[in-house]
């Protein structure tokens, strides 16, 4: 009975165009953000911050990036990790080679480099579709990682190709504790999520979805598929690039090609499919699922006092089974499940 939109009228298109038209949703979001920014850093343990929340937010950002490309523009990609790697390495190089460059600018520039690479590898999408495109994007993955291992200039000439990320310092303020890193990541992610949300509900987003749903019809309406798809690749790669930089700087602390393996690309794809393809919220839910579930399973499995290898394998099986289970319950992902839940809540206590 509490979740009702009755009595809330939107009299202008402006009001209807709001991010969250229902008041309860707005309140909930603001409250969540407030808690996340103010309470969490004070209350959460360093473990929770640095090992769970930071990677969760970073992966959510990457998933958001992929969701823009795959979920909104309909281009299936398996090259996410490569774009993240470009972002990370580029940021590292900017910081290392341009003394005194502001860190955030380096991240943005890293993202832009990723966007350029994204555009280059997005070109084939004009002709190639679906799983063919997905498999072809693996070329990005392998090629970029290969370049990063081969071209030692990119890794600052380090013999092993593994470099440690510089300390994050913004305007003389060092982000070195888990709390600070968390706040930084949270702000970046929240801001970028907001921008993404704006983008997908505006003309650009509609063009993406149009191309996704029926590219020929979109063309007939006057949407240029090439420009639209490439823009999607660019924006998506930018997001992934920034996420990659954060992954290196705020989480791992190292910049190395192996951290951006194919495995990571897949992981992020899982996130958006589980979370909900074509949903900003879904990116977060999916990231939570993929980041948190293995941790819980790991803790649970080891709590069972089973032999460790049995526990580890069971964990893998349960993870796989849960993915299937959720897909069967709701093929459109957790975001849809959430939405249906809300709709039910709206009707509650009446059945229909």
């Amino acid at each position: 009975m509490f979740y009702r939109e009755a009595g809330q009228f939107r009299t202008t298109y402006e009001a209807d165009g709001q991010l969250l038209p229902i008041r309860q949703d707005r309140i909930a979001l603001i409250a969540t953000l407030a808690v996340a920014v103010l309470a969490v850093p004070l209350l959460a343990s360093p473990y929770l911050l640095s090992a769970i929340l930071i990677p969760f937010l970073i992966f959510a950002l990457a998933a958001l990036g992929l969701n823009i490309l795959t979920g909104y523009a309909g281009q299936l990609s398996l090259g996410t990790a490569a774009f993240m790697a470009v972002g990370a390495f580029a940021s590292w190089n900017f910081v290392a080679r341009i003394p005194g460059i502001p860190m955030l600018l380096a991240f943005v520039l890293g993202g832009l480099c990723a966007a350029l690479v994204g555009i280059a590898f997005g070109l084939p999408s004009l002709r190639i579709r679906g799983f063919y495109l997905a498999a072809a994007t693996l070329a990005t993955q392998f090629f970029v990682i290969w370049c990063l291992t081969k071209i030692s200039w990119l890794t600052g000439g380090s013999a092993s190709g593994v470099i440690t990320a510089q300390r994050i310092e913004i305007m003389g303020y060092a982000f070195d504790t888990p709390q600070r890193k968390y706040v930084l990541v949270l702000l970046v992610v929240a801001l970028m999520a907001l921008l993404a949300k704006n983008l997908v509900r505006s003309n650009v987003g509609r063009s993406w979805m149009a191309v996704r749903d029926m590219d020929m019809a979109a063309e007939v309406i006057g949407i240029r598929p090439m420009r639209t798809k490439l823009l999607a690749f660019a924006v998506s790669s930018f997001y992934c690039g920034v996420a990659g930089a954060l992954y290196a700087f705020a989480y791992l602390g190292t910049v190395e090609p192996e951290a951006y393996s194919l495995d990571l690309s897949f992981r992020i794809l899982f996130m958006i499919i589980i979370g909900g393809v074509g949903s900003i919220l879904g990116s977060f839910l999916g990231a939570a699922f993929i980041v948190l579930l293995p941790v819980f399973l790991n803790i649970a499995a080891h709590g069972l006092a089973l032999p460790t290898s049995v526990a580890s394998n069971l964990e893998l099986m349960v993870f796989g089974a849960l993915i299937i289970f959720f897909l069967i319950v709701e093929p459109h992902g957790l975001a849809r499940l959430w939405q249906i839940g809300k709709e039910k809540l709206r009707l509650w206590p009446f059945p229909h």
Partner: protein
Amino acid sequence: MDINFFFEVLIGGLLSGVMYALVAIGFVLIYKASGVFNFAQGAMVFFAALTCVGMMDKFGMSLWLAIPCTVVAMIVLGIAIERVVLRPLVNQPEITLFMATIGLAFFLEGLAQLLWGSQVHQLPLPIEDVPMQSLLDRFNIVVSQFDVIAAIICGVMVAVLALLFAKTRVGRALRAVADDHQAAQAVGIPLQRIWAILWAVAGVVALVAGLLWGARNGVQFALTFIALKALPVLILGGFTSVPGAIVGGLIIGASEKLAEVYIGPLVGGGIEGWFPYVLALLFLLVRPEGLFGEKIIRRI
């Protein structure tokens, strides 16, 4: 350029390509007949091979007893997959089915190792993996006997499966299913039975691939990675064509080896990882549905 060496590389590449095709066929089978991009194919290969050696190890079976037992296991597995995973997901978007197979891959990897342990094993197929002496003597070219036999097995499999799809009633039904699950159901194609059969067959194909690859590389978790080798083969040959798998395999195998040997040294080597993908990608620019794939119908 040493022409002998060139041929050696070429033949080696072609034969490796056949091994890739072996894995690719499993993909094609399922994609062509249900529109599902089966990410779990690699896991199935691993599962099959590990089950086979696991039975030999744990129960002391001979190879010739373990193989039929594994065939049975794979058939049971295929039926179970249809029941538990696919049946509830009929008529869902491709990407959802794809994701479900990813879940399946995790499950199978865990299950295989839970049942049989994570140890690596040797798979003692009675085929020697040594250069064929006659060729070595006469032309100074190394060609492994094992590869030649693998190529023959693969050829036979391709022929049988290609025949199945072409013109038979079931083959036609399978292609119909891939186009439109719902319409296929509406005309009375027993989707569930067909899928169960299909996944069982794919399981057996995975076993063959698992046996041959397992004998070559040992039975270990890395068998799941060979699916990655099959992907460029698939996109080059076309997801929907059995002969495409083998032709794609030959092209990919030969060109990646030639590239590694002749281009690799110029750029620092190790290009085998991405070269096939880039090649396939360039090829797709010309033909977006691969060599023999069904043309993607785009119409409004």
